[in-house]
């Protein structure tokens, strides 16, 4: 009885989470301009979007900014994560941690407004609002997300591997490059993907920081959505869902294969146990 109640709750919950996305997809294939009244199947809005320069341009701008922001914030986030995990004692550590956490909780309207006023007050350095200012804005938000993701991986990492490399004579940079980096690579990839989508999605900060000619895709969609229902928004949504769905599917297949290969290697290693007399002798001595 309780089980059935649980199952019903879960099904209703998932329906709530997915119903809106599903209707978006269904109505992108609708022939009528009224985006909520089904007439009959049509691909005409998909064809229309190919001629929609506003959306195409916005998409290109967004991707450019997202690529730059994700890369910059993963680099800065890696450094920040190292500081938080490894450097437990230095002056200003509490303030440093506050600087990493603050962008996660401060509403975007505030981040956007303050950065805009900052750029206006020193416009001789940054010039007009555009790609550069949006990039900086997104990076300052995304760095915190990247730092949190990478930090959680670093905390769980076995430090003795790095110590072993150091004992074997690696220079600090070599240790980082040869040992640490491969170990945290997966978290770097997920941090990059996360920050990429955050940047690609961002409306509020971009609205404050964009200038003429740098209207990002979310800004185009937002201005259309504000006016009412618009089939082009549905089409963009469907394409996003398809790309994300495919990405997640491929990603999980790849992860499963990695996992299987690792399990096989481990099993193979256990099948042929190699005695290591040298090590034992060294310990005995």
């Amino acid at each position, binding site marked *: 009885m309780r089980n059935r109640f*649980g*199952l019903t*709750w*879960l099904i209703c919950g998932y329906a*709530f*989470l*997915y119903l*809106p*996305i599903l*209707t*978006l997809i269904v*109505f992108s294939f609708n022939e009528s301009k*009224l*985006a*909520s*009244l089904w007439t009959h199947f049509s691909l005409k809005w998909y064809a229309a979007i190919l001629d929609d320069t506003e959306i195409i341009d916005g998409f290109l701008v967004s991707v450019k900014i997202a690529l730059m922001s994700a890369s910059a914030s993963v680099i*800065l986030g890696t*450094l920040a994560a190292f*500081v938080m995990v490894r*450097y437990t004692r230095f002056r*200003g550590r509490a303030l*440093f941690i506050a*600087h*990493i956490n603050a*962008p996660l*909780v*401060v*509403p*975007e*309207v*505030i*981040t956007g*407004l*303050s*950065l805009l*006023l*900052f750029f206006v*007050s020193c416009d001789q350095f940054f010039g007009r609002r555009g790609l550069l200012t949006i990039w900086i*804005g997104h*990076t*300052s938000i995304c*760095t915190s997300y990247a730092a949190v993701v990478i930090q959680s991986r670093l905390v769980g990492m076995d430090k003795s591997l790095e110590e072993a490399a150091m004992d074997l004579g690696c220079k*600090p940079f070599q240790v980082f490059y040869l040992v640490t980096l491969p170990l945290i690579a997966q978290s770097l990839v997920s941090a990059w993907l996360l920050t990429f*989508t955050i940047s690609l*999605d961002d*409306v*509020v900060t971009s609205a404050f920081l964009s200038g003429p000619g740098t209207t990002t895709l*979310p800004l185009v*969609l*937002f201005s259309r*959505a*504000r006016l009412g*229902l618009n089939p082009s*928004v*549905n089409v*963009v*949504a469907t394409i996003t869902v398809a790309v*994300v769905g495919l*990405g*997640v599917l491929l990603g999980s297949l790849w992860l499963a294969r990695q996992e299987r290969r690792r399990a096989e290697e481990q099993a193979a290693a256990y099948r042929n146990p190699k005695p290591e007399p040298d090590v034992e002798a060294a310990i005995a001595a």
Partner: protein
Amino acid sequence: MMKRIENFWHSPALRKGWGKRSVIGIPYIFLILFFSLPFLIVFKLSISDTEGIRFKDLFDYIDGVAILRVRVSNYLFLMTDSLYVYTYWYSIKLAALNTVICLIVGYPFAYFMARAPATWRPTLLMLVTLPFWTSYLLRVYAWKGLLDDNGVINNFLIWAHVIDSPIKMMYTSFSMMVGLVYTYLPFMILPLYSTLVKMNLTLLEAASDLGARPLTTFWLITVPLSKAGIIAGSMLVFIPSLGEYVIPELLGGPETQMIGRTLWNEFFSNNDWTMASAVAVSMVVLILIPLAVFNKYQADSGAAKGT
């Protein structure tokens, strides 16, 4: 000479100090420059006196007298103007209501997820996080198509002869609430799930062996043990929904004035930069209160665990 320079760069003390300093310094300077400093500018602007379109300096030094000129009229206006007071009160109320609804819907959801067969759990978890990867703007927009007078839900109800004329759902506090709950529900579910899935189930068995009824066990054991998740989830829902702009703008009616929207209008429609800055500062103050409570709780529970 070259040799000496090389030695200098390779001296271990310097290299360590230099390396550590730059690892700390680069992200630190970036965030100070592009996060704190801009906020200080906002604060300065909110108390700056204006002369036409120019801002007067905060400090003046005339004939040996240092003058600090602080304009408080913006803040006085914020605290006395009934529309602003209403806006703040309304935002807090909606954010709190959103948190409570997310908790009521999300807690059983996370609970049943955590108690599902272990083989299902990764899939169930992935299904909760998956919508995150699609644009949240688009997901909010989707509710427009569902709740509109001509929308899917009204059309369905009319088709099923439940109602004769469409119910007004769009551009009300109801539609905004639906959008808020929909957007923030995963933020409640995920921390709850991670505390519930780690729970030691033998405690429940012990309780039932000692004669506790399932509901009693739930109240006395499960809920207290998931307190950390409840608090973390509530923070993740309450704080961002306080400053929400997109959802009230797309789904709310004209009467649903939330602070984030007010700030936006002050800046973009009224072009009143000092007023927008004052609103921003007061918003930060408003956010600091729940954050301080949260930090205190975390410090307390850390101390209790002896960590």
